[in-house]
């Protein structure tokens, strides 16, 4: 007699076969398929592990790359940034000592860890992937179960190739409707955060589903999943489909030949079954979404580009009202004012959110044949060395350089602000990044989150502007 299987969600189909054993009290010992290390703490963690007399259990499943602290200056060297010389040396030596692959500066593997993972085919459907960075949720775009961890958990993964985790609940966000012209994946996910809030996903793994998601390219899906943590969820996933499989075929670390076919059969089994139950569901009509820009100091503080700055006086909840007042004061914005026309000082195009080739292409289309406004300093920081080289083969660097942008080397740069690339105090930046927190891009820096198209248009106009009008 055939056993009637309960319909299951993508998340459960990936979680369940990775459970090595159930521990007491709702904690599972979860097997980890891929572990990614970046430069900020990897060297120190590897040293502490060695001091304890422990070696990585499966060094072949861990990959390291410098991104956070590296200089992005076009003439960079490892020593170019204060502290980075030591961090990079410790990481490189530590990796070499235990047999962990390290993608060094100026090689095709280097870049932001969440850009190179998919690009190299290290990220695959059905995998568990972890990294000491909260934007590890990005990899879920290919159907992986991926999440950010802390330093102690990194040591745990190195030593045991497992993690002790409490299974999250599951939340589905259904995106449907026709995307309006000039609206990008970044706008869709920012608007979603604005609608359901930065706490909506806490304690949950998110699955993005619906016709809009199915029509998205992998790069667009990566942008969507990247901001899952800004919804409070450490996991964001999209069911793999032909778009995913075509993307992966032929990549350096993707399975090949007969092994690819075997993997493919498994990958095809992963999408959520009809009738699977979710703890929470949200439906978003993308047809109603306009290009977004943030006005405050939380990613949920977003408005349409042609909208007005909200007025705290109209907010009933006193705690929310005082948070809005503090945000407006920090951002130097007046309640009720149109956001368009706000003069800016900086534009940053890059990051694990929007530093991929398609992002750079979209920005280049806006910039082509135009000049950066004289009051604006504008940077493009490609998400990876491979992205940079591909963009240069298309001549995109020349478009930006002749417009007055700086064309730099790959890294987290001004998104994390840890390598010395920061927006000066009090200056206003339109950034394609993921966090507009107080001080995120530098002490007292004012960050407006937006898409690459909106950022590029702002660089040209010298103020926040509706790219749809620039044409």
């Amino acid at each position, binding site marked *: 007699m055939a056993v009637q299987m309960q319909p299951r969600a993508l998340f459960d189909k990936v979680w369940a*076969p990775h459970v*090595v*054993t159930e*521990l*007491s*009290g709702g*904690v599972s*010992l979860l*097997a980890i*398929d891929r572990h990614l290390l970046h430069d*900020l*703490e990897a060297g120190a963690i590897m040293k502490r592990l060695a001091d*304890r007399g422990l070696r990585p*259990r*499966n060094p*072949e*499943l861990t990959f390291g790359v410098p991104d956070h602290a590296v200089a992005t200056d076009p003439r960079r060297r490892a020593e170019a940034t204060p502290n980075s010389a030591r961090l990079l040396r410790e990481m490189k030596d530590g990796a070499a000592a235990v047999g962990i692959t390290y993608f060094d500066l100026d090689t095709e593997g280097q870049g932001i860890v969440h850009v190179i993972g998919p690009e190299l085919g290290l990220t*695959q459907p059905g*995998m568990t992937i972890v990294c*000491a960075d*909260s934007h*590890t949720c990005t990899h879920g775009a290919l159907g992986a179960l991926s999440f*950010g*961890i*802390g*330093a*102690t*958990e990194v040591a*745990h993964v190195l030593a*045991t190739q*497992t993690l*002790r985790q*409490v299974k999250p609940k599951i939340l589905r966000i259904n995106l449907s409707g026709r995307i309006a012209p000039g609206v990008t994946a970044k706008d869709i996910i920012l608007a979603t955060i604005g609608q359901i809030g*930065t*706490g909506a996903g*806490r304690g949950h793994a998110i699955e993005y589903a619906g016709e809009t998601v199915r029509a998205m390219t992998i790069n667009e899906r990566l942008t969507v999943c990247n901001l899952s943590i800004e919804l*409070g*969820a*450490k996991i964001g996933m999209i069911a793999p489909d032909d778009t995913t499989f075509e993307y992966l075929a*032929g990549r*350096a*670390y993707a399975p*090949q030949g007969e*092994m690819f076919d075997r993997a493919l059969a*498994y990958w095809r089994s992963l999408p959520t079954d009809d009738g699977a139950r979710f703890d929470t569901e949200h439906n978003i009509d993308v047809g109603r979404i306009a290009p977004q820009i943030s006005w405050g100091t939380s990613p949920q503080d977003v408005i349409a580009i042609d909208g007005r700055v909200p007025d705290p006086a109209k907010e009933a909840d006193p*705690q*929310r009202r005082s*948070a809005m007042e503090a945000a407006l004061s920090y951002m130097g914005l007046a309640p009720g004012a149109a956001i368009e026309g706000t003069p800016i000082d900086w534009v940053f195009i890059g990051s694990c959110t929007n530093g991929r080739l398609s992002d750079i292409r979209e920005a280049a289309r806006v910039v082509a044949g135009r000049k950066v406004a004289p009051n604006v300093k504008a940077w493009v920081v490609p998400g990876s060395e*491979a992205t940079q*080289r*591909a963009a240069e083969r298309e001549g995109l660097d020349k478009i930006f350089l002749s417009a007055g942008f700086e064309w730099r080397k790959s890294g987290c740069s001004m998104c994390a*602000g*840890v390598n010395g690339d920061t927006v000066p105090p009090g200056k206003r930046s339109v950034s394609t990044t993921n*966090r507009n*927190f*107080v*001080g*995120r891009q530098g*002490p*007292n820096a004012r960050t407006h989150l937006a898409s690459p198209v909106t950022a590029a248009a702002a660089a040209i106009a010298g103020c926040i502007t509706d790219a749809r009008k620039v044409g």
Partner: protein
Amino acid sequence: MQKFISVTGVAAPLMKANIDTDVIIPVKRLIGYQRHELGAFALEALRFLPDGSENPEFVLNQPRYREAKILVTAENFGCGSSRESAVWALASFGFQCIIGPGFGDIFTNNAFQNGLLLIRLPATEVDSIAAELAGEPSPVMTVDLQDCTVTTPSGRQIAFEIDDERRQALLEGRDEIGMTLMRDAEIVAFQERDRAARPWIYDTTPRAVAAT
């Protein structure tokens, strides 16, 4: 990890929602400091004014809250970056327990890895504790992990829930890596089975690819 049985000490109300890990410890402090030194920079953006002097308005700078061991805070504390330094900074500042309606997921895991107890209570309960602390000249509370209760300055006892595994780990000051290493035979057996089922996961030899 240090054991956590119970703590009695000053509790400070910091009723601001969405305090992110960049606010708890700015990224520039992540390089060049030892874990135990980070307390000096905990909540730096709130504790200090731009000129580097103390912000006298900020709760932790007020005399009766200076020695706080317990933090009572609003929704979504510890959202944002995965930096464990956020937990190290709070612990090195002197906090042993944080009470709030909800915490960032990654922050939660990091806290329990370091013996920092996070207690989730309904928002209305948290608000009433905060109000009590604000009106109390000696805002001392007790948190007892053995019987899972919080006792407010007025003597009101509130029960809280916590995952049993996490509770035991804190009570015993358990080292998770050591505990998991004892399960190596299970991990070996898992990997053997999994290697047969999903061999491509374990073959990480790259192949040369033409530039894309």
